[in-house]
């Protein structure tokens, strides 16, 4: 593969890297740049990257420069990350900053850097590359959380994200180093083969310890128990655009990468008939999934702060995703991927709606949202639809995604997990409606009239329309299937 070919394959990454530099330089070069200009540059770059990613979906697979892997799975979720980052960027541009701080350059740059990190996290079999992507995304997130110096909680949120994130990524790195020792290589596929051999000889500990350490890393990204502690606090302390990035882009990237790692690492063993040895792994993942779903939803029940509620909700949704992961098999991963896509779309809409509503009401407390659904019926109704999708009520894509996950779980013999998921669905609806109910059923008269925020409205309505349209689930299922097939190991 020539360097030119490689460049073509890596066009999206290149665009993003270049775009990030341009954004940084923009304000220096154009002294009188308007605040929105850097955002526009960022959006253009994301659009360009998305365009090439979309193209790349049809290009097949390649190992580029020995470190980067291009395949359907990676590209698909890179696309998802790019689009959700774009959504976060739109929110950021629509947000109001205090006088003197109108510039968005830092945020835009950090978003793009994070996306770039996510791209590498998603597109590699090499553990070091993976770690670099992981850290790239992570560092961007820590900075994003803390970047709004004028908001009083930004520092605390930043500290928490940093300490907790660095701790878990450190644990993961330690796990990676052990895996390197185990497989003698940083390539996951080779490590996987070696792992299968080790497992076949009955040595469980050698695999179990790195597995748990990797779990710590991804557990942080995905915020499942017991690595979730940061999420509610940091969600609560960050601005809504950053929350959007945290809850969607960062989370989807981490989740998809988790699937890839598990597929690459364990599939060989699974194919080799080591299901028996891996049963405890399945069990532990299922237990984590159950605890996450249930406790996350329980904790979300009585929240009063919109962001914190979304944080806990995001924790609980991670538990659902884990159901598919826990199955450690093609069908489970397929269902998990489908769930992830639907979750992403749903959450983009919900966070955008939350942004819209908090801008309109001037607060993040649930009670300040009273009556907003009546004055803004489009956003209100869309939000209800999106929440229905989050809960898993038909006719929305969320229902299908959840149902598919549970079907796979039942097939995999995890009947009890199905029951727990059912229980937590009830709780989910309760907190979802605690969010939606005041919009319509209570009223408040005095409100500052804000700008019309039409792009945000369009985002919300579009996402709602999307989750309804995707109730015709075939496209989602096809994408999920293709992506899991492209992981090659099943």
């Amino acid at each position, binding site marked *: 593969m020539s360097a030119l070919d490689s460049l073509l394959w890596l066009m999206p990454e290149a665009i993003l890297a270049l775009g990030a530099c341009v954004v940084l330089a923009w304000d220096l070069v154009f002294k009188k740049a308007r605040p929105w200009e850097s955002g526009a540059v960022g959006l253009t770059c994301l659009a360009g990257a998305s365009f090439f990613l979309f193209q790349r979906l049809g290009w097949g697979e390649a190992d580029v420069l020995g470190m980067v892997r291009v395949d359907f799975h990676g590209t698909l979720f890179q696309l998802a990350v790019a689009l959700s980052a774009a959504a976060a960027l739109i929110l950021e541009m629509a947000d109001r900053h205090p006088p003197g701080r109108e510039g968005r350059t830092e945020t835009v740059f950090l978003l793009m850097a994070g996306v770039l990190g996510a791209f590498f996290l998603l597109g590699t079999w090499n553990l070091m590359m993976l770690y670099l992507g992981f850290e790239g995304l992570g560092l961007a997130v820590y900075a994003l959380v803390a970047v709004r110096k004028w908001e009083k909680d930004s520092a605390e949120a*930043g500290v928490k994200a940093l*300490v907790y994130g*660095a701790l878990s990524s450190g644990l993961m790195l330690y796990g990676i180093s052990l895996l390197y020792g185990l497989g003698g290589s*940083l390539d996951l596929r080779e490590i996987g083969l070696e792992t299968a051999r080790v497992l076949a000889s009955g040595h469980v500990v050698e695999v179990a310890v790195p597995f748990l350490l990797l779990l710590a890393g991804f557990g942080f990204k995905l915020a499942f128990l017991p690595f979730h502690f940061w999420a509610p606090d940091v969600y609560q302390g960050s601005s809504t655009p950053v929350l959007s990035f945290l809850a969607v882009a960062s989370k989807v990237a981490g989740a998809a990468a988790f699937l890839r790692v598990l597929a690459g690492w364990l599939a060989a063993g699974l194919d080799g008939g080591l299901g028996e040895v891996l049963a405890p792994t399945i069990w532990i993942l299922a237990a984590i999934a159950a605890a996450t779903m249930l406790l996350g939803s329980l904790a979300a029940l009585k929240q009063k702060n919109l962001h914190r509620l979304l944080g806990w909700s995001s924790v609980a949704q991670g538990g659902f995703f884990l159901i598919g992961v826990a199955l450690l098999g093609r069908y489970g991963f397929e269902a998990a991927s489908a769930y992830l896509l639907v979750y992403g779309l749903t959450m983009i809409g919900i966070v955008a709606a939350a942004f819209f509503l908090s801008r309109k009401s001037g607060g993040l407390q649930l009670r300040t949202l009273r009556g907003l659904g009546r004055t803004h019926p489009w956003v209100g109704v869309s939000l209800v639809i999106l929440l229905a999708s989050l809960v898993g009520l038909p006719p929305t894509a969320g229902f299908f995604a959840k149902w598919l996950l549970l079907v796979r779980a039942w097939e995999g013999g995890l009947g009890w997990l199905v029951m727990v998921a059912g229980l937590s669905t009830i709780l989910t609806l309760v907190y979802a409606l605690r969010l939606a109910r005041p919009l319509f059923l209570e009223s408040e008269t005095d409100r500052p009239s804000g700008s019309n925020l039409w792009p945000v409205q369009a985002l919300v309505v579009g996402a709602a329309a999307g989750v309804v349209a995707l109730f015709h689930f075939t496209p989602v299922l096809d994408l999920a299937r293709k992506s899991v097939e492209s992981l090659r190991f099943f």
Partner: protein
Amino acid sequence: MSLVAYLVVAALLMVAGLAMVASRRSLIHVLIGLELVLNASALNFVAFDRYSGGGQEGQLAALFVIVVAAAEAALGLAIVLHAYSSKGSIRPDDFRSLGDS
């Protein structure tokens, strides 16, 4: 010296780092603990590379880890600075306005 010795040292480093993160009363010390955690991994990489690896992958990895550690330290210090300027303290326990009551 055998591989095990390196691994034990790395593990000790790791535990020391974790202990610092969990117990020290200053964010700077917590950051140092985080660096220790990273360095434990770096030590592992090098040791594994020396004793069981074929190429230079482990050593390269260790270099990357150092870079990442530097970046993390830089960002960490920046955030701690910001935290200090907004709260006037860098005691971890002073940061608890976010959380469930």
